[in-house]
């Protein structure tokens, strides 16, 4: 039985259609990668799944999942600048009623042990991203909705993130990841959804991508129409 089912989900803001009749489902222990150009509707789709945005039509069905079992990362969501890293994490986890067994250990694991008492507002963007990642890996979470999860992370951080995702995916947890990093998605995800102008234009498994196109980047370039006027970049 799928963990989530998206049935004919559409979203309009005024007269502008952001998502149109999106359908897909995700099983336990699977990861789906969402690709598409800027403004394609990837973030809105993730926000619709977690309930921040209400769909105009269609429905999002969470099978046997309660909202507090969903973990999310969005680019436009930050912690509180006036609190230190560790205080922010305590306040955040207490608010959503989640526990990390040893916060100190997690700060060490995510390479933030030296700066845990530093105010969040002086963190670099990479450190902020590490905080985001630390906050979602609480034990109770079952479904992870990640929007550009590795933007700003250094190479070590990206490698650690990939390993961590693969290991907890093997524990039966599910992921929906929107990213432009095709190599990273290729390593983590089992299937891919390509979105353009709010509509799904291709849905393919990892095996299909590798068999037909050799790499995810080639698949993306073949399927998704370019939104950049290449001629303007030619000299």
């Amino acid at each position, binding site marked *: 039985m799928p963990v989530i089912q998206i049935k004919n989900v559409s979203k309009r803001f005024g007269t502008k259609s952001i998502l149109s009749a999106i359908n897909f489902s995700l099983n336990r222990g699977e990861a789906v990668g969402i690709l598409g150009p800027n403004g394609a509707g990837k973030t809105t789709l993730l926000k619709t799944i977690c309930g921040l945005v209400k769909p105009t039509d269609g429905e999002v069905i969470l099978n046997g999942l309660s909202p507090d079992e969903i973990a999310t990362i*969005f680019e*436009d969501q930050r912690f509180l600048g006036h*609190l230190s890293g560790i205080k922010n994490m305590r306040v955040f986890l207490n*608010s959503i009623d989640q526990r990390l067994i040893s916060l100190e250990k997690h700060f060490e694991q995510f390479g933030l042990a030296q700066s845990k008492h530093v105010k969040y507002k002086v963190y670099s963007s990479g450190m902020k991203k590490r905080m985001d990642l630390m906050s979602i890996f609480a034990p109770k979470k079952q479904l992870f909705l990640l929007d550009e999860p590795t933007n700003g992370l250094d190479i070590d951080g990206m490698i650690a993130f990939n390993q961590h995702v693969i290991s907890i995916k093997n524990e039966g947890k599910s992921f929906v990841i929107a990213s432009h990093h095709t190599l990273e998605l290729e390593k983590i995800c089992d299937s891919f959804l390509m979105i353009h102008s709010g509509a799904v234009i291709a849905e393919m498994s990892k095996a299909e991508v590798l068999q037909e196109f050799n790499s995810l980047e080639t698949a993306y370039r073949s399927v998704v129409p370019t939104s950049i006027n290449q001629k303007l970049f030619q000299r």
Partner: protein
Amino acid sequence: MIRIATIELTKYARTFVVFIVIYFLVLTILESRLEAKAFFTYGTFDLHTFTVVNSAFITVLTSAIPLTIVLNVCNEFKNGYALKLISNGLSRAAYCSFKFILAGSLAIISMLLYLLVVSFLLAVQKATYFDTSIFIGSLIRTVLFSMFFSSIAISLALLLRTWQYALLVYYAYLIIETFLVLRFQETAPWIKYLPFNLAVSIFQLQAAPQRLSDYLLPATILIPFCSAVVWCCTHFFRKADL
């Protein structure tokens, strides 16, 4: 509830909040020092002195606390923290209730601030007479009216989520109501029962209820007004795209 109050107060306690509250407290003390002549001449902390102190302290309840609440709540939406909580499993209803628990905590803090102001005045001028019953009544009113104004400020902040709009609506309503009362109180006496004016005049002891039955009319105006504002704002907040 204590856990949530602690969380909310941790987020609320910021440098600018402390500055704003101290600024309004200093204003209250200065105004009391200038206006409470009977107390500073004869040492009588009577009805007149309490009227002066309460008239000065009302700005803490109507301006300082709502202002800091609106700035804090809207800041949580601006930097995405509120959305982070909601998308990570905190229900919208729970988020609203957290904020109203903050309002409750601030009501108790307001009472302590009122106590601080009165204690300070008593420390600088020895009292020959102190009306304990008015003092206790004022402490209770501080809690109730702080809750009233804070709940309205929180509701507007949740609904509008932008501090400029929330403050504009809050203060525009406050100013319009004050203008209407000042302009039409002679020709239309019922106008003094407009909610904000009624709350302020009761706190300032200008229309202080004496008997239990005197509380009935203010209660039938203020409680439904506050409940309606809270219900409307939280209802639309639960349905909004965030």
